[in-house]
């Protein structure tokens, strides 16, 4: 009999996925199953927290381009 596991399927770029793996490596609180380099399954209740952590991580590495043109 196959097993069914509840979770959230996350599809993203390989670069984003590696950040998620890095976030998870601290306390393994997010990832349920690492599927391939663009997909993984995470715990359902952790999605919002993961999104927040991801945004934080991205803020450190990225410079938001400024809007051109005047009002």
């Amino acid at each position, binding site marked *: *009999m*196959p097993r069914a596991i509840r979770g959230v399927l*996350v599809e993203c770029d390989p670069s984003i996925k590696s950040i998620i793996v890095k976030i998870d490596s601290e306390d393994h609180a997010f990832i349920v199953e690492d599927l391939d380099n663009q997909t993984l399954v995470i715990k359902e209740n952790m999605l919002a927290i993961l999104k927040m952590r991801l945004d934080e991580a991205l803020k450190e590495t990225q410079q938001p381009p400024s809007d051109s043109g005047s009002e």
Partner: protein
Amino acid sequence: MAVSTLASFEYLEQLSGTTFQKLYRQPSTALAIFRRMLPHLGRASFAKKSNATGSLVPGLLLTLRRQRDEALSLLSRLYIVHITARTRDDPQVVSLTKGFRSSLQLALTGGGNHQSFGVPSSDSATADVDLHYLDEYARAQWEGILHYVVSSVGEGMHQASQGPTSAVKQLLKAGSLVTSGAHSGITQAGFSFLLQEVNAQVWTLLLLWIKNAEQMEMDSVDVLSFLFMLGSLELGRAYSTTTLSESQRQMLKYLVDFGLVYIPRSTPNQFFPTRLSTTLTSDATALRSVAAGFDAVNTSATGTKGFIIIETNYRLYAYTTSPLQIAVLALFTKLTTRYPNMVAGRITRESIYRAISHGITSDQVISYLSTHAHPQLLKSSAAHGGGPVLPPTVVDQIRLWQIENERMKATSGFLFKEFESQKEYDACVKYADAIGVLVWKSDPKRMFFVSRVEQLRDYLKSRKTK
């Protein structure tokens, strides 16, 4: 599957079989659901017929078969049809469930004495209640609610209006469309609510109310069948409240707050359904007639239907004085100037980011802009041989801004793994794909991900017993 995505049917799908049996005892409910489900029924039977003749291209046949399976699985979730499991010896048999069939027959032939289509009031109708008055009343009530939802954003533009009753405000808070307290304001759910079509908005609010009603210990079957009855009533006609049950009469009070029914003060035992309620269960074409009905009323207040001009440099001009429309625009535009008859602003990266962070999608923004495009934009697109209404640069940029912000796509559901054999895996994947729940699969790993699990679980059980 545009119909099945509607919130009303998502709610219905969660109900139990016994609830459906009770619901289908009312002919009006059976008829309402039948009307709404007609595209699916049609698809199911069409696919069957074309299957028999076999004259279609194989590729098309496959799509049709897939659509039929999806339609059938939806119909069985709503307990409209009963499907026997496919076995080696017997072909699959599909039949209407007994309760549904008999009620539908009653509804179509008009037999029986069930009063489920409402009882017209025998008292003389109040003279001043005509269609125009009802439309005006429904519009005022509904805009009051919408405005309350949006007011926290469009601060400063908020004009004094009486707003909805406290019961409605409570409901909006309970459904977390707005929040109160220190961070009072609109929520993500509230944003998407605002950009929905009127009919979808009405259902969203009604479903919220039904969920709350369960806590108030009202019979959800009673409440639902009353809603479906409302959908079959005639606009501009007075109906009697005396034949309603106790919980239905209680409900009437809230429906008045929503603007779904009107009760004249002089004759409290009759009620008039408004356009909002008579189109509850009709299909998409009738939705437009709601909008058309409102537009007729709106023209005096807000001018023509299209009022937004957007230029290739992201500047936006909206010829409107309606605080509601300005507030909606302010959700995704950086408004800079307000003139007596128009507002001007720009669509910027930040304004779109803000909108997206509140849960508005780029498609919602684009569709809002194009449905409310100024006639001048329509005219120039027609002059260029029917090109796009909005400047393509702006549309593309809005989409790009969204993609930039969407780092991952999340789908909740179930991961299946540890299959005993390749054969078992293949069969399950095929079945999941056929009923339209398969999201992701990996053949080498023998794993797949589905958005729904109930039917697959039954399928696995039936395989086991075989």
